[in-house]
């Protein structure tokens, strides 16, 4: 039986209800939160600042350094042991790569921009929510950027291509694939692409095109949140 009706009644390319807000952490140089359905990411940016440990400093330009953490109680199953798992380290690395193409830190040699993302509650799509929030936090911090980065996961559930999968869809009894994608907002260049599960070449193409087409909805949420903060600033 094909997966014709989604578990939560959304259309195939329908995203979960999203919201975004910037400036949620006063201590940080820039911060943002992004929610999609039950997945909730909070991002804080500190920097550009001195690189520690110092040997990592690049005298030609600054760099970004992400950290991704699921809070111990945020998963759908057992408690997640604190400390950086191999999964969290890998996600942090792909987040770096997803954001690097738009960030320009040539004016800040020997410095680092730290991006910390914490997830208090999750229902799949965490790395995408983390990237979306991190991009907003970077913009909030005034870091020079060529473009925004938006991210969403697409995938297939029992042969049907859908966007923004939930945990229940990822766990669907049948062939499932999960394809986290991040793209630049204007040129729709892919900066993050991962996939696991079971997918055919033709389905992959449809899924990537769906990701490209829904990306503007995420960009709208980012834009709205940033405008909302900076509209408040007295002239």
């Amino acid at each position, binding site marked *: 039986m094909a997966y014709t009706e989604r578990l939560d009644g959304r259309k195939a390319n329908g995203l979960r209800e999203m919201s975004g807000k910037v400036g949620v952490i006063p201590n940080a140089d820039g911060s943002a939160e992004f929610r999609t359905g039950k997945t909730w990411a909070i991002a804080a940016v500190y920097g550009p600042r001195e690189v520690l440990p110092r040997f990592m400093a690049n005298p030609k330009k600054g760099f970004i350094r992400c950290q991704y953490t699921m809070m111990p109680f945020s998963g759908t*199953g*057992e408690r997640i042991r604190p400390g950086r798992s*191999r*999964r969290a*380290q*890998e996600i942090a*690395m*792909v987040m770096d*790569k997803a954001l*690097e*193409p738009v960030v320009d830190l040539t004016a800040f040699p020997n410095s680092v921009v730290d991006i910390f993302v914490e997830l208090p509650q999750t229902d799949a799509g965490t790395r995408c929510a983390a990237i979306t929030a991190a991009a907003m936090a970077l913009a909030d911090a005034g870091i020079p950027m060529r473009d925004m980065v938006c991210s969403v996961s697409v995938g297939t559930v029992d042969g049907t291509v859908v966007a923004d999968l939930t945990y229940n869809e990822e766990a669907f009894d049948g062939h499932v*694939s999960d*394809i986290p994608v991040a793209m*630049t907002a204007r040129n*729709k*260049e*892919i*900066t*993050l*692409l*991962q*996939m*696991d*599960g*079971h*997918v*055919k*070449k033709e389905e*992959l*193409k449809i899924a*990537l*095109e769906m990701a*490209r087409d829904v990306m503007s909805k995420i960009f709208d949420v980012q834009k709205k949140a940033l405008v909302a903060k900076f509209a408040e600033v007295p002239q």
Partner: protein
Amino acid sequence: MNTAMITFNKNTVLALAKEGKRFDGRKLDEYRGPIEIESSISKSAEGSVKVRIGDTVVIAGVKLSLEKPYPDTPNQGGLMINAELTPLSSSRYEPGPPQMPAIELARVTDRGIRESHVIDTKKLCITKGEKAWFVMVDIVSVNDAGNLFDAAGLAVMAALKDTKFPVVDEEGNVNYKEHTDESLPIAKDTLSITIFRVGGNLLVDPTVEEEDACDTRLTVSSDATGVISAMQKGGEGTMTIDEVMKAVDLALDKANFLRGKLQ
């Protein structure tokens, strides 16, 4: 290797790549030779191989152990893949706990095998909730001359196929000194192929110099029917959808080529 050398090589490789050439004279979609798989190289492992692609050599070994299944999958055994980039294999690696490149190599290889259900983990269960076989695969680099990704994927698949269960005595203890004739329940041959973009061109099986010059790579794991089980983009560059689809085509084709080397 010092940075001046890396920069020199990078510029040379990029200049050649823009003309569609490679400094060792290969075509963009051509592997180095020889590609060799030598099985059962370690008597202490349940399964082991040495894989060579050109000058790149990796060893993979499999150990089996009887463990209590995880609480969320009481009727299944498990699979774990780990990678060590040893200081023995390149001046670029230092002693110490696994760094990011080793973690990524292990996780990308692991996902390809796991997500395509190469091993039926239900068949590894002996007593539900009590006892099941766990398969631990370690990939160790011996000489990193580039393209550890493809070599590691090939080595894991070959090592799993080489694996024989050890003897279990009447009290349920594992006797690792003796092995049965029974192989692991392997359903398919899944291989991961990494496509590198250098100077705007897609190529396979890079040397270290080509890896240094690459701005983007895409790893694609697939089985013989062309179903993709895992992908990962790496590198600082961006890709278009068309480029991704071209890389996927090339990866599926090269997976079939390397599958021919597995017996």
